[in-house]
């Protein structure tokens, strides 16, 4: 009943091919986006913005990037952390070398640099597939981190090897650096994520996305019908790395404020991969759900004992948190192997019939 599509007629091809063909979806998504822009900066405390929402947005962007590559084009990658590091370090180099460059341009350019690196490391994907490709991308992860550790030029010869986000303004307001407010950084992150999510959504339902899916489902068949594997796979690597690069720049500039290579180590690559798997392979919504799950659940679990007045030793609490978190991942994968996005889809179908089960 809530989801009643009866009576919504589509009279043009355009209407039929819309991103959200159902009116309720359009309303809900539009309301959610407006709410995301308006409510948190007004209501949320700094802790919520800084420690929960900003990392959620940054990781969501990275998860979208990886989802394009792994979920849509079917190329398993463990190099996400490395590509994020490329984005972060190039953003740092660009911002410090050209102090007057607009911060948005810095983010986009660092995304492009990451895309270039992604193209380079995507070349092996033409010959190797599946787990073997994962190992090849793992090499890129370790090589890139090693490079940033080894070459002091990337950190402007800082003795500690740490990069720090400088103060930069956008429309007259500070949006990066230690003096910027969490709300400003949140809005910039949200703006970036909103725009790139729309771009991604449109990419995957157009020619590019369809050729990715064709490659994913059966590469030989795709080749026979005229999809060029070289271009398609490399494009997937490039665009995915672009997203990861922007996310990496966001990680340092909008979230952490300063970082060293440890912030981009292999665990990040796995974390983002888990987001994609738990959220749902081949789903933009799934990237958000997966990022929310991975970012929020540990924070909730670490706050939960306090909230109910339970004082546990921190070590015990951490172990408890890891166990519950692991258990939840297994639970969700058993209940719905196709991810949280699929759960949402099922919910929608149920809502369509509600309150009459059949």
């Amino acid at each position: 009943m809530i989801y009643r599509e009866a009576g919504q007629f589509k009279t043009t091809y355009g209407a039929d091919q819309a991103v959200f063909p159902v009116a309720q979806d359009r309303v809900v998504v539009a309301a959610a986006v407006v709410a995301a822009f308006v409510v948190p900066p007004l209501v949320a405390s700094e802790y919520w913005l800084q420690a929960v929402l900003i990392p959620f947005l940054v990781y969501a962007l990275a998860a979208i990037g990886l989802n394009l590559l792994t979920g849509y084009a079917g190329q398993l990658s463990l190099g996400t952390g490395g590509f994020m590091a490329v984005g972060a370090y190039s953003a740092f180099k660009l911002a410090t070398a050209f102090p007057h460059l607009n911060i948005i341009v810095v983010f986009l350019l660092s995304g492009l640099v990451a895309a270039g690196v992604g193209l380079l490391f995507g070349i092996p994907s033409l010959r190797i597939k599946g787990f073997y490709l994962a190992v090849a991308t793992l090499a890129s992860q370790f090589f890139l981190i090693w490079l940033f550790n080894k070459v002091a030029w990337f950190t402007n010869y800082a003795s500690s090897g740490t990069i720090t986000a400088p103060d930069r303004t956008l429309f007259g307001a500070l949006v990066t650096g230690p003096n910027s407010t969490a709300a400003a950084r949140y809005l910039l992150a949200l703006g970036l994520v909103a725009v790139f999510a729309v771009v991604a959504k449109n990419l995957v339902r157009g020619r590019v996305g369809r050729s990715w899916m064709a490659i994913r489902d059966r590469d030989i068949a795709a080749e026979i019908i005229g999809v060029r594997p070289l271009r398609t796979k490399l494009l997937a690597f490039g665009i995915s790395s672009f997203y990861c690069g922007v996310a990496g720049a966001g990680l340092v500039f909008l979230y952490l404020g300063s970082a060293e290579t440890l912030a981009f180590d292999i665990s990040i690559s796995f974390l983002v991969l888990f987001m994609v798997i738990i959220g749902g392979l081949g789903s933009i919504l799934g990237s958000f759900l997966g990022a929310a799950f991975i970012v929020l659940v540990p924070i909730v679990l670490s706050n939960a004992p306090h909230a109910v007045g339970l004082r546990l030793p921190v070590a015990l609490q951490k172990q408890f948190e890891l166990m519950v978190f692991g258990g939840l991942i297994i639970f969700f994968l058993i209940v719905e192997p196709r991810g949280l996005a699929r759960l949402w889809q099922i919910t929608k179908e149920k809502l369509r019939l509600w309150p009459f089960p059949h």
Partner: protein
Amino acid sequence: MRLRRIWIALLAALVVTAPMLAAGQPKELFIPLLVYRTGPYAPSGIPIADGFVDYFTLLNERDGGINGVKVAWEECETQYDNKQGVECYERLKGKSPVLVNPYSTAITYSLIPKAPVDKVVVFSMGYGMSASSDGRWFPWVFNFPTNYWSQASAVIRYIGQQEGGLEKLKAKKIAHIFHNSAYGREANPTLEELARKYQFELTLLAVDNPGQEQKATWLQVRRLNPDWIFMSGWGVMNQVAVKEAASVGFKMDHLIGNWWSANDSDVVPAGEGAKGYKGATFHAPGTNFKVHADLLKFVYDKGKGSAKKEDLGAPLYNRGLVNAMLAAEAIRTAMAKFGNKPLSGEQVRWGFENLNLTEQRLEQVGMKNFTHPVKVSCEDHEGSGPVLIQQWDGKKWTVVSDWIAPMRDVVRPKIEAAAVEESKKLGYTMRDCAKEK
């Protein structure tokens, strides 16, 4: 079905409300403790956290707090991870802390830019950014009693003493094995400068996080056959390194760990092989001090201790005690000016900057001969305190050197130059110390 729905609703409610709960107005001094009691850094993280908590428990139990104001603290598990550390800091910031001990150089780097904005003192005792020792540029950051650069120079001075004079260092081979992170790299610039000055051959060998895999490093050590090794390790890296050193047959008394690499937990796993291993420190090991007797009497006999009784006196446990004592004395200094009440971050900052910990005061707090006096000033947030070398004899640590002064003539100009560099990144301006007071 209905039950399930209720469960879902309850879970959802918990998810939404849990982190929103905030604390009320302070009646006590709140000190957030970023600790790591789990993960690969737990061997180092547990004793230091225990020492810190025990000292504050002692203050509360014995003296009723600092000048009658109770100390409150809350631990937050960071796993030595930058992101979790920032999350912890943001969570505990809501409880109006007066100072923060990040216990991690990487987290310190993340918190330094926030300190002046949030008005929270960053007290990175003997770690963190060496450049922040220049208080003119970094008013909110303190790393006394001494920093990594001073320590590196003191260790080189010690090696010189052992070789019969600093001029004998010429053409000697010294390797620095370091944790490949902001922390481990910190000593490198000073070592490089000293290598130029005294013309020894310096080799820098990085060990990647978390440091369980060091075969390649020690293969290089074997090939290189250095005369001395200086090590900046942390967590599980230390015990692996000590074991590897023993197994390649390196002379253990020529392997010197920095003050974060010389704890009981680092040498015990290597057994007999660790005998002779040396480490730097700025306080004595062991329990032969009044403060330990007080701890046993007021804390452990009441069952309020956080460590096992036999773990008291381990170097890192004692480090926690020193850290807590220095923080408490800084707060006491601030109270002398602002009154015995819960203080603001700015007031505590004043206390840190005007801390003058004398020999008499050390005796009063039961730490005579335990550590050395510290005097902090507006220009100097480090104090360039001297360093001791301790040695593991297979059962316990013994101090084997006198207090070794760092080479302030080398280190201080480097600090001032680095402070300008680092502040430029943050857009700071230098304050005029003549106008403070």
